[in-house]
Structures are given as structure tokens and as C-alpha cells.
């Protein structure tokens, strides 16, 4: 019991020392005297929170159970650190340029400051980290119990209360040093310093135990190696698949564990620190792993078989009576556990507060950032409550999980959970095409698969998933068996879960990213992240102008505190050369302000708050340049498409017009053929009918015979004329006819035409022959044909009692006009347009013509360079033939 009391006393003193160190570091940082606090060495030591109690105690247990496999947990981070130039440097640069406060902030910021993503990542981080916190509580409790057990038996209720007290103490420490200020950079000098100290303590403790085991118990390096050779550990085989899976898993977890992100990126003061850390941290890991095997071997050899290998670091010195060494070892384990819990609690509380509590509060409180009241206190309060809640969750998990499972197993489950962030995070850093939808889908799919195939089975068969579900799948669906998804059984459960969760996660992420289109803000942020080394300027600039400096000050006071806010504003006013407290809301200043605020409330919220007051986001020139290329390409493509579309529309219109023309032509052709058919068949009907009558009828009178024969004859003549006209018209229309140009007198042409039509005496023709002495140079026969046609028409259609045709000639300046005017009733106005069409019928009366005459006249006159047109308003039917003067001027 005495040792136990001493242990408690030592522990309390140690805790007091930590408080003191943290307190001094905070004070020095506030006074600005803390340059040494920001040394690369401290940064490197702070990374050692990767080595939790799991590493301190668990690695030995792991080695005792699975041989050298524990090394994979160190190899992963070592690879990441050695390859820092590739991924880590970019992550840190982006984190600093964007002032991210957590991994949730990083992912949300990359995908257009998405709130949903931030909430999702936060919730996943809480689920993934809680078992790990429980694990730390368990390790402290177990180690405490081991001490107590060496003196007397400890009831279970005691161990529970130990865990509770540890949790309360850690919550207190974290609240005190984790939420002292709302520094824009979200750095916690006190906490980092305390962690660095703890890093030294745990390394020292483990090395001390190791040295004791090798030289104190085994008699030096040589005999130790012999013992290792003799033990089972030395003969363990390396399983390639499991090793690769574990190395990948630990590397992924190193990058995406919230607490690692906190120390790697958020607490990073200077990118150059990575250079030292890139070799110093792997060295630290190597030292931590140096004595793991010897301790395990000695523990297995010396302690009874039922002893828990997870506690060999503690129980080996205890069993040898080395209480002091054991106490140091206890402090080492205690340090490992507490530093992890503190940083994890800070990281988680920042996320919970910034991404869940603050957005809800801003939404619920009307008027957003402009309501009265001190937001600063609210932020602090929400963070403190979040810390308490996180630790409470860890404690409850510890209470209800029973704390039976091996430490390393819980650790790996937790690792695999947070490793689901990796595709969205790395994708966001290196791939412009990654989109919010892709990230959401990847995270959800990965997390679901992880929960199903790893988290739920980890509670053991019958706890949450029944044995039947494990063996046969839910409702007997075999391909959904948690540890043999899609029917692939026989894999190691761990490798199986990692393989499916990460590959399905990545697949969903890539496919949905390719399918979806990013919003403008996402595209900007994508450019900022992926090309962070090209332009590390401000991530998102504000256009000045409408912003009200006073409103901004009021808001900033509430978040940063009145003194800090006023100092910030006054400094800016001075820099701008203004008297008084209020600076101009220049874009630079607004960016700086947003940066300050984002440390307190997260990037998305800060952006929204400034945006509420300034009104509207705008972008900096660099940002615009970054997306301008793409936009230009898209515009060019789009204008090409437009041009093509216009061209197609034009072509379509032309085609439509051509089609309409063709359709019209086709209709015309049909009508023409139909007409021809009719005009040919009608005379042939008479001919056939009467020739049959003549042939078949006996006893016809001579008179009838003569009558019928002359009908046949007339119809045959009619047919011949029709065919002649058709051929004539066809030749004229096709332009195949050659005009026979001669010299002559108009008088002579008219004389010829009148003579040719003088068969009937019914029509009286009046002429003024004097005026007809005009010299012509044209096709005289064709012109005569036109005149004959016009005179014949008058003979046929003039309906006057005493038909008369007057032929009037006018010798104009440019053309010669010959008018044919009769004294009939003329052509009705509505028919005047169609008389020149083929087969046009003006009247119902039969006149023997096929309706082609005027069409032929018009064709001829067009060939001769003149025209023939109907002349309205002349009393009777009147046609004017015009001839070009040039054709007739030569004499």
C-alpha cells in the first residue's frame, strides 16, 4: 500500500510539473519570449503523440503475440516523414495558407467550404477517436491496477473510479491549457511544451526499462540475442499481405488522425521544421521500438504464462523488485496516454465546436453575427463543453466495452476508421477534378464499409452483430458477411476491411468526382489547394467598398475580445495612415480579419460572418487567373459549339428550303403529268371510240361516216399540235434551242403572222403599217410564232359580236412595244396572272387549245430578251409584246 501511495504522490507531482511547464510556456509565449518554444526540436517531440500508451505498453504485447509485426506501426509514419517533400509539405503549406483549424476544416475548405463535409468528417472523427481515448484510459487504469496488484488485490470498482478520475483530470488540464485563448493560429504553446516534455519522459522510461532488461537481467547484448533467438518471436514469419496492409494503414492514419493533424499542421510554426522532423522523428520511433523485443522475450521467459503481455514494461521491473524503475515506467505510460488524450480532445473539440455547435448557434440566433452578446465566451464555452463531452464519451466507451480486448486491436480499428479521410484529403490536395459530391460519397461509403466490416465485429461475436450474421451475413445474404464481403473469404479480417473500405471509398470518390461538376468556390479552392506552391497568397479575398468598419469591429470584439479586436483595428488604421480606430475595409484587411476569426470559429463560419457584413464574396486576381485558363478553354469550346450550332441551323434551313422547293416542284410535275395525260387521252378517246364505231357498226350512212371520220381527223390534228407544242415548250424551257438571229422589218413579221391566221374571216384586224417600219435584229420566225399565237387567241376567244383586233406599235427609247388589243370582254382580273401558265384554262368553253400557247410565247420572248404581258384596262383582252431596242437598233 505504501508503494501505491508513493505512486499516487509521484503521479500528482508529475501532473503538477506538467501544469507548471504548460503555464510557464504560455506566459513566455504571451510575452513574446518564446522563440525557443518554437524550435524544430519541440515540433518533432510533439509529433511523438503518435506513440500513445498503445505503443508504450501495447507494442511489447503485440511483439509477444505477433512477433516483429509491431514494426509496421512504425514503418508507416517513417515512410511518410521520409517522403515529407511529397505530401506532408503540401499539407502543411495548405494548412498554413488556409489557416485550417482541423482536418475537418481542411476537407470542408477544399470542397467549397462545405458545411456538410465538415460535419461529416467531425462525426467520423469522433466515432473513430472515442475508442482510442477509452484505450488510453484503460491503459492508465491497468497500469495502476498492476501496481496495486503487486501489493494487494484491487476491486473492479476501484479501477473504474481510477479511469473516471483520470478522465476528469485530463479534461481539466485540456480545458485549462487547450482553451486559454482563441488565438488566430490556434496554437497551444503550453500544451505543446508539456507534450514535448512527456515525449522525453516516455522515451527515457522505455529506454531505461530496456537497458535494465538487456544489461541488468540478461547480462548484455550477446546473451540477450541468444535468448531472442531461442524464443518464439525470432521465428515468426512475415506475412506479406498483412504487413503491407498494416504499413499502409499506419501511414494513412499518421496523416489523417485528428490529433496528428493537430500537431503536424495546426501547431506547426514553420514549414522548415519538417526538415528536422523528417529524420528526427523516425529516429525517435526507432528508439522507441529498440527494446520492444527484448522486453517481450524476457517477460515471456520470466513471468507466469497468464501475465498480460501488454503490461510487461511495467510488470518486469516490478517482479524484479525495481519499484523506482517501475514507477518511471508508469510515468512513461501515463505520459503517453495523457498527451494523446489531451491533443485528441483539443482537436476534436475544435471540430465539434467550429463545425457543429457554432453553425447551429449562428443559424438559431437571429441576425447572425450582428446579434448582441459575446460570441467569444460562447466559443470558449462550447469548446470546453466539447472537451468534457469527448472525454465523457471515451470514459463511457471504456465502461461499456468492458476493456477486455487487446490494446492493439482497438488501435487498429481506430486507425482504419480515420484512414477513410485519406482519399478525400489527398485527392483534394493533388487533383483539381475532385468535387464535394465525390468527397461526400467516398467518405460515407468508406465509413459504412469500415463500420460494417471492422467496427461492429470488433466488439466480438454476439455483442452487436450476432454470430449468425458474422457467419452467414445479414438475413442470410452471404455476400454481405462482414468479414467476407462479396464472397471473398479467407482474407485476414484486418486486410479484408482495409482493402474493401479504402478501395470502395476511393472508387466512389473518383467516380462521383468525375460525374459531378464543382461549384465556382470549389473550383477556386481546388486551384488554391492543388497549386498551393504557385500562389500561396490569401485564399479568398474580399472586395472592399460596402463594408462597414464599425460593424466589423463590433463583430470582431465579440469573437476576439474587445482589447484584441481594437488593437487589431487600430494597428491596421495606423498602417493605412489613418487617425482613430477604424481602418478602411480594404481587401487585405478583410482577409487578415477573416484569418483571425477563422482561428476561433473555423474558416467556413468566419467567411460567412465577414460575408454577412461585407456582402458578397469576390476573388483575388491570382484566383481568377488560376481558373481563367479553364474558363477560357470552356468559353472557346462553347463558342465553337455555338458557331457549329448556328451553322447547323443555317444548313437545316437551307435544306428545308430546298426540300420545300423540291416538294413544290414535285407537286408541279405531278400536276403537269396529270394535265398532259388528260390532254392526250381526251382526243385519243374520241379517236378510238369513233374508229371502233366505224369498224363495228354496219349500215352507217355515208353522212355519218364522213362526220365520224372528220372527228377522228380533227382529233388527230389536235393531238399532233399538242405534241408539237409540248416539244417546243420543253426545248425552250431547257434552253436547248438556238435562236436564229436575222435582220428584218417588224412590218414583214406582222404581215406574215396575219397571213398565216387568215383562215377565218370572222376577226377584223386593224393596223397602222406606217409605224411598223422598224428595223429588227432578232429571230424573225420565233417572233412571228408569238404574233400568230396572239392573233389566233383573239380569233378563238374574242366574244364580241363583231370581233376586232387592233395592233398598235410604239417605238420607244429603249424598247419596241407591240400591243394586241381586241374588243371582247377580256380576261377576268383573277385569271390575268395565270394565263401564261401551262394548261391554264381561262374559260369553260372548248377551243381546241391545250393551254400551252401563251406559255410558249413567254418562253420565246424571254429568249429574245423581251417580254409578253397582259395589259389590263384596255376594254378587251390586251397583250403587249416588248422587244429590246438594242436587238433591233442595228440597220
Amino acid at each position, binding site marked *: 500500500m505504501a508503494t501505491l501511495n508513493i505512486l499516487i504522490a509521484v503521479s500528482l507531482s508529475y501532473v503538477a510539473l506538467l501544469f507548471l511547464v504548460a503555464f510557464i510556456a504560455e506566459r513566455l509565449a504571451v510575452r513574446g519570449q518564446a522563440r525557443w518554444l518554437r524550435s524544430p526540436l519541440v515540433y518533432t517531440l510533439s509529433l511523438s503523440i503518435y506513440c500513445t500508451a498503445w505503443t508504450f505498453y501495447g507494442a511489447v504485447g503485440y511483439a509477444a503475440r505477433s512477433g516483429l509485426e509491431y514494426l509496421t506501426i512504425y514503418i508507416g509514419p517513417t515512410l511518410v516523414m521520409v517522403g515529407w517533400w511529397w505530401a506532408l509539405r503540401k499539407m502543411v503549406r495548405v494548412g498554413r495558407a488556409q489557416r485550417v483549424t482541423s482536418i475537418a476544416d481542411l476537407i470542408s475548405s477544399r470542397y467549397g467550404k462545405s458545411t456538410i463535409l465538415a460535419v461529416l468528417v467531425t462525426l467520423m472523427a469522433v466515432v473513430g477517436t472515442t475508442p482510442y481515448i477509452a484505450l488510453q484510459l484503460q491503459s492508465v487504469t491497468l497500469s495502476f491496477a498492476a501496481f496495486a496488484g503487486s501489493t494487494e488485490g484491487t476491486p473492479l470498482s476501484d479501477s473504474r473510479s481510477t479511469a473516471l478520475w483520470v478522465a476528469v483530470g485530463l479534461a481539466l488540464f485540456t480545458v485549462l491549457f487547450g482553451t486559454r485563448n482563441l488565438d488566430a493560429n490556434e496554437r497551444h504553446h503550453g500544451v505543446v511544451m508539456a507534450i514535448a516534455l512527456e515525449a522525453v519522459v516516455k522515451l527515457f522510461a522505455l529506454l531505461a526499462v530496456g537497458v535494465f532488461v538487456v544489461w541488468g537481467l540478461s547480462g548484455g547484448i550477446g546473451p540477450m540475442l541468444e535468448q531472442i533467438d531461442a524464443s518464439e518471436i525470432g521465428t515468426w514469419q512475415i506475412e506479406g499481405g498483412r504487413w503491407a496492409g498494416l504499413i499502409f494503414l499506419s501511414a494513412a492514419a499518421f496523416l489523417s488522425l485528428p490529433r496528428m493533424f493537430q500537431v503536424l499542421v495546426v501547431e506547426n510554426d514553420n514549414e522548415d521544421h519538417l526538415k528536422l522532423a523528417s529524420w528526427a522523428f523516425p529516429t525517435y520511433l526507432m528508439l522507441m521500438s529498440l527494446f520492444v523485443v527484448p522486453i517481450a522475450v524476457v517477460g515471456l521467459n520470466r513471468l507466469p504464462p497468464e501475465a498480460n503481455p501488454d503490461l510487461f514494461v511495467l510488470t518486469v521491473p516490478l517482479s524484479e523488485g525495481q519499484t523506482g524503475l517501475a514507477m518511471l515506467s508508469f510515468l512513461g505510460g501515463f505520459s503517453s496516454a495523457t498527451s494523446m488524450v489531451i491533443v485528441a480532445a483539443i482537436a476534436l473539440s475544435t471540430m465539434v465546436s467550429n463545425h457543429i455547435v457554432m453553425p447551429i448557434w449562428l443559424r438559431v440566433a437571429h441576425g447572425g453575427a450582428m446579434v448582441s452578446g459575446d460570441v467569444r465566451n460562447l466559443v470558449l464555452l462550447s469548446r470546453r463543453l466539447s472537451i468534457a463531452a469527448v472525454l465523457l464519451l471515451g470514459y463511457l466507451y471504456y465502461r461499456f466495452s468492458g476493456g477486455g480486448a487487446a490494446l492493439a486491436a482497438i488501435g487498429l480499428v481506430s486507425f482504419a476508421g480515420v484512414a477513410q479521410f485519406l482519399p478525400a484529403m489527398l485527392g483534394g490536395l493533388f487533383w483539381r477534378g475532385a468535387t464535394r459530391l465525390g468527397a461526400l460519397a467516398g467518405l460515407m461509403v468508406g465509413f459504412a464499409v469500415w463500420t460494417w466490416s471492422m467496427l461492429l465485429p470488433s466488439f466480438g461475436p454476439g455483442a452487436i452483430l450476432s454470430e449468425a450474421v458474422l457467419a452467414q451475413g445479414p438475413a442470410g445474404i452471404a455476400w454481405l458477411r462482414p468479414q467476407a464481403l462479396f464472397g471473398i473469404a479467407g482474407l485476414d479480417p484486418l486486410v479484408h476491411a482495409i482493402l474493401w473500405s479504402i478501395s470502395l471509398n476511393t472508387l466512389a470518390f473518383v467516380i462521383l468526382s468525375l460525374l459531378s461538376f464543382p461549384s465556382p468556390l470549389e473550383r477556386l479552392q481546388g486551384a488554391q489547394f492543388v497549386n498551393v506552391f504557385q500562389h500561396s497568397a490569401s485564399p479568398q479575398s474580399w472586395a472592399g467598398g460596402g463594408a462597414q468598419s464599425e460593424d466589423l469591429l463590433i463583430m470582431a470584439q465579440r469573437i476576439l475580445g474587445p482589447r484584441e479586436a481594437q488593437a487589431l483595428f487600430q494597428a491596421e488604421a495606423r498602417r493605412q495612415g489613418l487617425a482613430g480606430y477604424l481602418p478602411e475595409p480594404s481587401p487585405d484587411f478583410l482577409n487578415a480579419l477573416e484569418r483571425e476569426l477563422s482561428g476561433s470559429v473555423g474558416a467556413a463560419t468566419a467567411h460567412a460572418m465577414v460575408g454577412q457584413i461585407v456582402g458578397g464574396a469576390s476573388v483575388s486576381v491570382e484566383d481568377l487567373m488560376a481558373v481563367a485558363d479553364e474558363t477560357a478553354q470552356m468559353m472557346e469550346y462553347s463558342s465553337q459549339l455555338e458557331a457549329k450550332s448556328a451553322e447547323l441551323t443555317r444548313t437545316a434551313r437551307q435544306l428545308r428550303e430546298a426540300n420545300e422547293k423540291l416538294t413544290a416542284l414535285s407537286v408541279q410535275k405531278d400536276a403537269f403529268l*396529270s394535265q398532259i*395525260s*388528260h*390532254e392526250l*387521252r*381526251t382526243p*385519243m*378517246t*374520241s*379517236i*378510238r*371510240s*369513233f374508229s*371502233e*364505231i366505224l369498224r*363495228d*357498226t354496219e349500215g352507217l350512212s355515208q353522212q355519218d361516216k364522213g362526220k365520224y371520220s372528220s*372527228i377522228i381527223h380533227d*382529233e388527230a390534228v389536235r393531238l399532233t399540235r399538242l405534241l408539237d407544242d409540248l416539244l417546243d415548250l420543253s426545248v425552250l424551257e431547257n434552253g436547248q434551242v438556238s435562236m436564229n438571229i436575222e435582220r428584218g422589218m417588224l412590218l414583214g413579221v406582222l404581215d406574215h403572222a396575219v397571213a398565216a391566221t387568215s383562215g377565218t374571216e370572222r376577226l377584223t384586224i386593224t393596223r397602222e403599217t406606217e409605224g411598223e417600219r422598224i428595223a429588227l435584229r432578232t429571230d424573225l420566225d420565233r417572233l412571228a410564232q408569238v404574233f400568230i399565237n396572239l392573233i389566233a387567241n383573239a380569233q378563238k376567244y374574242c366574244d364580241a359580236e363583231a370581233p376586232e383586233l387592233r395592233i398598235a406599235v410604239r417605238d420607244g427609247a429603249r424598247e419596241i412595244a407591240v400591243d394586241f388589243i381586241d374588243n371582247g370582254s377580256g380576261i377576268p382580273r383573277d385569271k390575268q396572272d395565270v394565263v401564261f401558265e401551262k394548261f391554264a*384554262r381561262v374559260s*369553260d368553253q*372548248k377551243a381546241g387549245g391545250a393551254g400551252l400557247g401563251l406559255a410558249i410565247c413567254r418562253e420565246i420572248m424571254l429568249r429574245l430578251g423581251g417580254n409578253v404581258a397582259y395589259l389590263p384596262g384596255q376594254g378587251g383582252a390586251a397583250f403587249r409584246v416588248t422587244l429590246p431596242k438594242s436587238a433591233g437598233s442595228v440597220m
Partner: protein
Amino acid sequence: MGKSVLLIEDEPNIIEAVSFILSRDGWKVDTHSNGQTALAAIAEKSPDVVILDVMLPGISGYDILRALREAPETRNLPVLMLTARGQTKDREMAEKAGANRFMTKPFSNAEVLEAVRSLVNA
């Protein structure tokens, strides 16, 4: 026989030829050459058969036929259609309009006689 035929046709020579053929076969032949008043002529003469030309001045033979088929008293009047347009669609139009027979010009006299006789006997 004493049956009567009304020929509605505008070509004088065809009117003469058809009248001659049918008269010699013992038919009472009336002719009408104005399409506009054809319906009135049919109502007045109430013939046993109508021979109807398609292309009449001012009106189509199809229109006359449709009007005949709409009126109850002439719905079943036998009609022989004549056309000088020999295309398939003309035949289709004639059938659609309700012609009992359809004949393309030029026709043989025997054909016309046979057609008119069969229309009356049917």
C-alpha cells in the same frame, strides 16, 4: 330494255360517241355537260345509271359523286366514273368517293357497254 343513262361529260366528241353506242344498244341516253348543275339534272332525269367524268369545268366529278352518296335517294344509284388521268391515286379517290365502276380513257366501246349493263343488273 328501256333503261336510261345520264352521261355527264364536257367533251362534245366523247358525248357523241357514247350516246351513239348506248342508243344503238337500246338505252335511253341523256347528256349533261355542265358540272355545276349536274346534281339537279340527275334529280330531274332520275336515270338508272350515271356515267360521270372526273374533270368537269368548275367542279370535280368526285365532289358530285360524294354529294350523290350523301343524299338518301341517290345513295345506291350506280355510277360509272370516267377519267383521263390514269394514275393509281385517281382510282383510289374514285373508290373512296363511292364509284361502282371506274374506267380510264381511252376505253373500248364494248367495255363501256359491258360496264353499264352490269351496273343495271347488279
